[in-house]
């Protein structure tokens, strides 16, 4: 072969290419998805509006009695936050799959783990974080006792991040399925049980004047585990799901 120098040069160049880059790739996807999310501001509002509407249904369906609402409030807010997250998860990878950027992502030299992490981070920024910020307002609507507001925000802040991460696995598993939305909820909701239990009980504890450090620690541990494991599972699921 005549092109030995060329091959060597290519090899050298590729070695240089392999080493840095993971952070740059992470940032590239983070930036791209953030821009897209803000261009689709309307879609960003949808989970929040859903959150608000369902919470409005509670007094209408049960009773406007303050005492009853106050006992329901922590659990209701948590359950609805969970549902709102689930609804917004369906499009996490679906739009990328439909326009072909997902296959470009899969065959880029970037580790898929960090790419998934970047996408989930954006998802949390545009759903989990706004839900957390909006929760106190809903607390007022459901006459949540004053001691419950701070625990509610802390637990939602930690918990919604876990919800986004775990949900990403479901979104990846159903990415190629046309009607994946409902299936995604079926598949993922059982996995949300621990987050719901600890999140809602921390708020209840706070209302009753007990310390909530234990529950927050558990939620934090759960989040740490989800950060390590969930993107890995989602990455594996994407490689499989794309061939659906």
């Amino acid at each position, binding site marked *: 072969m005549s092109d030995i120098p060329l091959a060597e040069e290519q090899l050298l160049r590729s070695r240089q290419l392999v080493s840095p880059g993971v952070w740059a790739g992470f940032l590239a996807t983070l930036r791209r998805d953030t821009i897209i999310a803000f261009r689709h501001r309307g879609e960003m509002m949808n989970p929040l509006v859903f959150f608000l509407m369902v919470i409005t249904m509670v007094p209408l369906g049960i009773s406007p009695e303050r005492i009853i609402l106050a006992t329901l409030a922590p659990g209701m807010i948590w359950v609805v936050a969970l549902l709102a997250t689930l609804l917004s998860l369906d499009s996490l990878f679906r739009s990328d799959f439909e326009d072909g950027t997902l296959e470009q992502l899969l065959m880029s030299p970037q580790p898929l783990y960090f790419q998934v992490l970047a996408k989930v981070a954006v998802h949390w920024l545009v759903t989990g974080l706004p839900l957390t910020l909006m929760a106190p307002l809903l607390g007022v609507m459901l006459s949540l006792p004053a001691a419950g507001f701070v625990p509610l925000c802390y637990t939602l802040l930690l918990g919604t991040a876990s919800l986004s991460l775990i949900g990403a696995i479901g979104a990846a598993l159903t990415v190629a399925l046309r009607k994946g939305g409902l299936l995604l909820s079926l598949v993922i909701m059982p*996995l949300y049980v621990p987050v719901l239990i600890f999140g809602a009980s921390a708020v209840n504890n706070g209302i009753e004047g007990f310390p909530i450090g234990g529950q927050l620690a558990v939620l934090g541990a759960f989040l740490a585990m989800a950060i390590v494991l969930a993107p890995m599972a989602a990455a594996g*699921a994407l490689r499989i799901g794309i061939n659906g």
Partner: protein
Amino acid sequence: MAWQWFHRLGSPRWFYEKTGPWMPWLAVLSAVLLISGAVWGLAFAPADMKQGNSYRIIYIHVPAAFLALAGYYIMAISGAIGLIWKMKLADMVMKSAAPIGAVLTFVALVTGAIWGKPTWGTWWVWDARITSMLILFFLYLGVIALQEAYQHQDTANKASAILALVGTVNIPIIYKSVDWWYTLHQPATIKFTSESTIHPSMLYPLLTMVIGFYCFYALVLLLRTRSEVLEREKKTRWVQDLARQG
């Protein structure tokens, strides 16, 4: 040597031919165990001091609940083997194990509810075990639903294997958190089934039933996997020869 054996095991044909002779033995064994365990437990074991005869449903409830959980792990492990070693047989085992596990979980739930009626006076109680069982049932349903949603068999198997594995990591956490949730809400409940205090005369028939259920589970799993093998390999010569021999 061990690896060769492992790969031979991965061959559906080898599996089909090897497990064929086991089937009658397994069938007889599980029938004997189940019948003797049931007769022993229902007719000869003494009645419970507090619950009278209604406790006897544990002879179905407990083995079913045992296997429902064990079945999830069997499913997840075979799914993992299928993912890692690309072994088709493992995929088939996983696919067959999912509905069996779901049915057992359902049996455990229904018997739990029936047991709850005389014990608590209501069909449904948000007891920690029953709630965990219900969530396990949901996990099974998720795996089955995902399996059904894909058209390509390979993709379906791999996707549900990943889901089963994720569930495996989560099950202990779910069980622990449900336990914790239960103690939080009902601190003073009488526990009827603390296994440590069960009298040997009640325990032995229970153990017989548990072993019988395991044998029966193995039998049904093998049957389902064998028919899956035939279905998937129907175009191959050995299956067609088999069909010709009738």
